[in-house]
């Protein structure tokens, strides 16, 4: 039988706030465990939560950008379960009444655009972190750090609209890009500021009823998402083809082995006993606030890509690559502003610049070469001060040292030689220094022109303007 894979993703995005969701502890992580905690996020007896307004604002921004509906009235609920990194024994989350209902995200897959629906976006607090046993000290213990506890998370729940591991990956990549554009999440999967769980099930092609699903946790890279779902699809197919049924369960992805495994702790059938959080009052988002947030939504990647094509005349491919990262697209535009030749800028940004970034693991805004510096370099080429070839080494030096192009060119004496009197003098010396080759040339071996060009470039350490060298050589050899 042919099966169709049905996938829904639950993505947890850490919101870019200064303070935690319900207390004023900082959200930037300290190296030292439990250093960024207070009685509130530690869940000490007697403490009460007070909601961070900015976390609501960022969730509204996300929901509105994805065409979701802001629930006019929504509230928080307690989700009850015991875990050592969950201080209160319950997580403050949203259950029946999420902040955002519905919404969608367009993804491009195989050259066509598909709309993926969202079920909801809600706000909740993060739990802490546990280090297990031998990774710290005693293998029979776990070590709990609550610095992360209470950090605001936005949970974005997609409908089961995805049909393949590749689609799931593309959806997640697109979501990350959009969140970056909205400035609501830094999208760093390695550090856990973007986390993904996948609900996966199979059903016979052509049927509507959903099959039994499993939930896969621990997907901390795009690659893992695709791999884990692909593995899980095959596993479920195997189960079904053997006439057995898929067990509804939570599985963990083991990235090292590329497999999903059932969680060992047989948590008794989850009964989270949700009920309205009595310590927080309901939210009624004012229409004015919604309107203000709507106005503040920046240009999103799809719109920006179209603009890059129409405004700058860039090829669609360039536009795609550039807008995939907001910081990259910003970098491009800032450079074009100073050096208005978009295609040349695009070539440099996608080429040399991106290569250096990747090697150094830098974000565009962390790069030692700012748009101003890159524009300066491009102007030097444009004005003929340096050659395009030398510019490449100059750029590497700029990236390495953080110096400006003009300084490097001056320090290393890389200014292109375009003074015809000086060049004529060099060429005359080259010809005088190679009488045999000169004679051979004059005897008709015209291929030796290249030899004289090479010698001239060598004598000028590559600084000679190649076009001028050619012209002068031909004159002198006549």
């Amino acid at each position, binding site marked *: 039988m042919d099966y169709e894979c049905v996938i829904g993703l639950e993505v947890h995005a850490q919101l870019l706030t200064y303070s935690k969701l319900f207390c004023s502890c900082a959200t930037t992580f300290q190296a030292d465990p439990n250093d960024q905690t207070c*009685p509130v996020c*530690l*869940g*000490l*007896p*007697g*403490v*009460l*939560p*007070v*909601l961070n307004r900015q976390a609501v604002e960022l969730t509204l921004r996300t929901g509105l950008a994805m065409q979701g509906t802001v629930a006019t009235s929504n509230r928080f609920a*307690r989700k*009850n379960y*015991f875990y*050592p990194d969950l*201080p*209160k*024994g*319950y997580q403050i989350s949203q259950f029946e009444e999420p902040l955002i209902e519905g919404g969608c995200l367009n993804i491009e897959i195989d050259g066509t655009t598909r709309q993926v629906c969202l079920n909801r976006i809600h706000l909740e607090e993060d739990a802490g972190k546990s280090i297990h046993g031998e990774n710290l000290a005693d293998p029979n213990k*776990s070590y*709990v750090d*609550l610095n992360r506890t209470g950090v605001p998370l936005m949970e974005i729940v997609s409908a089961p609209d995805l049909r393949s591991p590749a689609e799931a990956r593309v959806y997640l990549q697109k979501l990350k890009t959009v969140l970056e554009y909205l400035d609501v999440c830094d999208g760093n999967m390695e550090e856990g500021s973007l986390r993904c769980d996948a609900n996966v099930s199979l059903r016979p092609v052509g049927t509507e009823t959903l099959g039994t699903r499993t939930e896969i946790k621990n997907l901390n890279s795009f690659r893992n998402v695709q791999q884990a779902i692909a593995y899980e699809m095959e596993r479920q197919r195997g189960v079904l083809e053997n006439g057995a049924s898929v067990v509804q369960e939570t599985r963990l992805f083991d990235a090292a082995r590329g497999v999903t495994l059932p969680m060992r702790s047989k948590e008794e059938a989850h*009964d989270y*006993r*949700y*009920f309205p959080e*009595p*310590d*927080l*009052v309901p939210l009624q988002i004012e229409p004015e606030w919604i309107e203000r947030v709507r106005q503040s939504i920046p240009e999103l990647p799809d719109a920006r890509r179209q603009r890059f094509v129409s405004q700058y005349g860039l090829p669609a491919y360039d536009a795609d690559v550039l807008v995939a990262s907001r910081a990259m697209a910003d970098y491009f535009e800032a450079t074009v502003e100073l050096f208005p030749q978009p295609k040349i800028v695009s070539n440099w940004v996608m080429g040399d610049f991106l290569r250096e970034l990747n090697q150094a693991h830098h974000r565009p805004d962390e790069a030692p070469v700012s748009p101003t510096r890159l524009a300066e370099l491009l102007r030097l080429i444009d004005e003929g001060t340096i050659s395009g070839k030398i510019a490449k080494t100059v750029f590497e030096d700029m990236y390495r040292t953080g110096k400006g192009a003009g300084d490097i060119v001056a320090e290393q004496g890389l200014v292109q030689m375009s003074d015809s009197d000086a060049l004529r003098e060099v060429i005359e010396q080259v010809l005088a220094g190679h009488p045999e080759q000169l004679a051979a040339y004059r005897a008709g071996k015209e291929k030796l022109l290249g030899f004289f060009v090479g010698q001239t470039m060598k004598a000028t350490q590559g600084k000679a303007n190649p076009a001028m060298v050619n012209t002068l050589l031909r004159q002198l050899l006549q």
Partner: protein
Amino acid sequence: MSSMRPIHVLREQLVSGTLNAVALTEAVLQHVDAVEPELNTYVTVTAEQARQQAAEAADAFARGVARSPLQGIPLAIKDNICTKGVRTTCASRILERFVPPYDATVMQRLQAAGAVMIGKANMDEFAMGSSTETSHFGATRNPWGHAEYVPGGSSGGPAAAVSAGLGAAALGSDTGGSIRQPAAMTGVVGLKPTYGRVSRFGLVAFASSLDQIGPLTQDVHDAALLLQAIAGHDPNDSTSGDVAVPDYTEVLDRGVRGLKLGVPREYFVAGMNAEVEAAVRAGIEALRQAGAELIDVSLPHTPYAVATYYILANAEASANLARYDGVRFGFRAAEPADLSDMYMRTRAEGFGAEVKRRIMLGTYALSSGYYDAYYKKAQQVRTLFRQDFQRAFADCDALLTPVSPTPAFRLGERLDDPLQMYLADIFTIPMNLAGIPALSVPCGLTTDGLPIGLQVAAPPFREDVLLQVGATFESITDFHTLKPDGLPVTCKGDGYGL
């Protein structure tokens, strides 16, 4: 026993210099030493800190800068209110050694007012009880009735401390009657403020949508002073009301002429103690004679109060008490075999029987398949309680009722019958369900010499009306001056002899 005087009297003496703040605190501490073995009102006595605070107050008086009415006044603080650096146990083994690194908002306000804390007063474990017998640190005894009776609960320690003069006043907490019922049973004044009037920040939660901190005092004037100090909006408590706090002492001598006082018929039921009923009815009649107009009102859902309350309160409690897991603070069972064993035994050994019973009930009421039948149903009935009171207050300014159907009972008498214990709260619970303020004032003694309380309830944020009615009642009676030896300190007679 003691002849502790009310705060407003002590204040005059402290200001005039006839009483020294250090001497006052020393006298209370000595009295505590003498009486504690019998009554067990305190879990922790903070003598050293009290002496230091008293010295600071004395200094303020000497320099003429003692402006707060609470400066140098010795207070008992219920042991579920967090005190920085002083263990806060909730009378539970699980918090026996818990020392909060922070102060409850009310403690910050009391400290700013220059009050002196004598110690942390005993209570039912996690405020779950009506007799102060479920304390891990032993039962508190009622100063009345030769220490053979319970002081009520759960604020039995604070109530008994005020009654016995082991503090000029106290802070307690009230979730279903935990201030008013022990106040009635120990012959002191107890006020449960409107939900949201006093910050809950730092009050160890029992049932978050019902809990309120409030004063237990020797008279209504003192209740006004103490409420004044702790009331008001707190940005650390999202449920705290941003409602202006009036000057509560201004209303004390207004009398009740022209006030309409409702008497709900459902609060006088068959089976209630005849002496209690008689005393409460006499009190109501006294207020009528003082000029109030009495109105017959109905609060039809009253019989469902206990069922509604025990579902809601315990459901919230089951979540609020999940944090006692032996990970970050508090008791942890010895040598756990694994994580699950640590949880199961820590909570089994750390909590007492009543707390476990309530966690079980609350967990069950929230669990899958039962939520609608129990929790949601109780929330709906809670709406009906709010509507009952809204309707009643359309016709009257305040309500007059008994506090408890019975006077104090003997130690151990109801411990084996949880339901009977719960039913004793039927007249105090409805105010918590509706969030409205209520006051208990002494209105008589039984033939056994046990105090009886009259309850006054008012619309939300109208504590001023409670105080107005209560102060008027005190002006025409002298039950509030009776002391536990059964002898009135300032006057003798039948209570209406003034």
